[in-house]
C-alpha cells in the first residue's frame, strides 16, 4: 500500500539571474515498511527530494501526497504537525540537545509529537526503545560523553520513539567509520521492519545498500534507475 507519493515534483532554485532546475518532474511512490535508498552524485537532487518529501521545503511544481493528503497545499503549521507526529528524522550528525540526558532526548520527542501517554507509560516506552537501540545502559548520560556511534543510536531512538510512519535519513552513516556505519544501518533496517516504518534514505556509501529493499539512482534531477 502506498504511503507517500511524490507526483511530478519539480524544484527550481534561482541564483541571481540564473535559474537552475534541481528536480525535473520526479514521480515516486513509497510503500509501507519499505526501506528505500537514494544514491547519486553530489548535485543529483537526492537530498532536495528527501527534504521536499519530508515537508522541509516546498516544491516549485508537483505535489507530495502523504496518507492521501496533499502536503503541498497544507499550511506550515499543518506540515509541522505532520512532521512532528508522522515523520522521524535521522541526519548525518546526531544533533542531540546537549543539555538533555539520553532519556530526556526521547521524552522531548514524545512531547513534540504530542503523544498522549501517561508519565509512567512514557517512561516505559523510553526504556523499551533504548533497549531496542542498545542504549538503555547510558540513559542518564549527556551527549558530550557519548561516542559518535552512540549519539547516532540515540538519534535513531529519538526518530522512532513516537512511532512515525516514515523515517527520513539523510546520510545517517556519513560521520561514522565502516564498523559503526554497518551497526547503524542494521539497526535502522531491523527497527523499521519490526515497527513497520517506511524509510527513505540518502546515502553515498554503496556498502550500505545491502540493507535496503529498494535503490533509486538519481542523476541530474531525474530518477535514472529504480531497483527493487
Amino acid at each position: 500500500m502506498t504511503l507517500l507519493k511524490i507526483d511530478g515534483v519539480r524544484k527550481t532554485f534561482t541564483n541571481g539571474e540564473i535559474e537552475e532546475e534541481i528536480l525535473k518532474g520526479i514521480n515516486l511512490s513509497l510503500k509501507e515498511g519499505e526501506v528505500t535508498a537514494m544514491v547519486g552524485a553530489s548535485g543529483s537532487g537526492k537530498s532536495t527530494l528527501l527534504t521536499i518529501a519530508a515537508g522541509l521545503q516546498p516544491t516549485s511544481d508537483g505535489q507530495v501526497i502523504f496518507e492521501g493528503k496533499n502536503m503541498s497545499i497544507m499550511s506550515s503549521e499543518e506540515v509541522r504537525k505532520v512532521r512532528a507526529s508522522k515523520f522521524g528524522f535521522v541526519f548525518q550528525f546526531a544533533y542531540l540537545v546537549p543539555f538533555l540526558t539520553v532519556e530526556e532526548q526521547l521524552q522531548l520527542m514524545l512531547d513534540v509529537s504530542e503523544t498522549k501517554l501517561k508519565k509512567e507509560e512514557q517512561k516505559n516506552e523510553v526504556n523499551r526503545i533504548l533497549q531496542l537501540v542498545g542504549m538503555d545502559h547510558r540513559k542518564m548520560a549527556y551527549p558530550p560523553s557519548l561516542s559518535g556511534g552512540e549519539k547516532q543510536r540515540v538519534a535513531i531512538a529519538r526518530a522512532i520513539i513516537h512511532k512515525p510512519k516514515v523515517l527520513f535519513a539523510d546520510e545517517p552513516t556519513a560521520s561514522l567509520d565502516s564498523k559503526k556505519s554497518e551497526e547503524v544501518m542494521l539497526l535502522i533496517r531491523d527497527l523499521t521492519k519490526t515497527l513497520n516504518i517506511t524509510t527513505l534514505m540518502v546515502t553515498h556509501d554503496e556498502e550500505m545498500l545491502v540493507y535496503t529493499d529498494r535503490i533509486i539512482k538519481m542523476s541530474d534531477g531525474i530518477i535514472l534507475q529504480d531497483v527493487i
Partner: protein
Amino acid sequence: MNLAWKEMKKNKGRFLILGSIVFLVSFLTFIISGLANGLSQDNAALIKDLPQGQFYMDEDADQTYNLSKIDRSIQNEILSNEKNAVAFSIQMGFLNEKDNKQQSVAFTTATESTLFANVKQGEVILDSSLKDKGIKVGDALTNNQFNGKFIVKGFVEQKKYSHAPVAYINKEDYQEIYRVDEMQLIFVPNGDSSKEYAGLHSFSNREFLQTIPSYNAEQMSLNMIVWFLIVISGMLFAIFFYMMNVQKIGLYGILKAIGLKTNKLFKMIWIQMAIITVVSLILSVGLSQAFNIISPKEMPFTLTITTTIQLSIVFLIIGFIGATISGMQIKKVEPLQAIQKGEA
C-alpha cells in the same frame, strides 16, 4: 518538558555569569536611584513635601525665585480669595553658634499656614540635621544681619532646601535680615492651574522644582545614568541570548525540523530571562534596601519600596524586549539550512 530550566541546570556557569552581571547592574541602578532621590530630597524636600498645587512668582523675576517680589496688594487678594494659600520666602544664609561656629541654612518665612512652621519673633525652628551637629532646643543663635538672637524652639524632620537645613523664622526677623518687605512666592494648595494673576507667573509643583538652581542638572544627570544602566541590562540580555542562539542555530533548526514549535523556543528564552532577572532583582533589592537602612545619615540616600518595584518592573520589561529581539533569529532559522550546515 522544561527545556529552559534543564539548560540552566546544565550550564550553570554561563547563566551565573549573566545573573551576576544583571545583579550588579540592577544593584548599581538602585544605588544611583537612591542617591538621585536622596539628593532630590536634600535639594528640595521643603518644596517636595508640599501637596500638589500652584506656585506663583513675580513675572519680572524671570523664573528665579530669589529675585521675585510679589506685590503686597496681589498677595492679599490671593490669600483672601484662596483657602489655605500661603506666601513664603526662602534665602540662603548662616546661623552662628555660641562658639562662632557657622551653620549654613535656608531661612524660610511664611504667612500663617499649616504647611510651614509658625514661629514668633526671635525664635527659630530648625531641620533635625542640625540637632545631630549639637544644636539643642533653647540654644541662642545669631546672624550677622540680625540684631537680636534666635532661640531654638524645636526641630522638624527632613526639611532641606538647596542641600541646606531649613531654618523657619518669623516674617519680621526675615525682613530685618534681608531688608525686603515683599514675599517671594505664593503657594495655593490644590490650586487651579488655569487661574492667572496679573504680573505673576504660575507653576505646578514639578515646574517649580525645575526653577531651583542645580536641581534640574543634578537630577537629569543621575536619572540619565539610571536609564543608561537599565538600557545596558536590556542590551546584556539581547547580546547574551544572541551569542547563545548563534551557537545553537543548528540545534534549533533540527528541533524545528522534528516539529518543535517556534514559540516553545521563545518560551525557553523568556523563562530563562525571567528566572535570571527575578533572582538578580531579589538580591539587588534586598541588598539596596539593607543599604538604605545602614547608610550613614549624612549620606543623601532615599530608596523607597515603590521606586524599587517600579525599577524592577522596568528591568523585567527591558529584559523581555532584549531577549525577544535576540530570539528573532530563532524565527528566521530554517530547518533545512541547519541540516545543510552540518554539526550543531
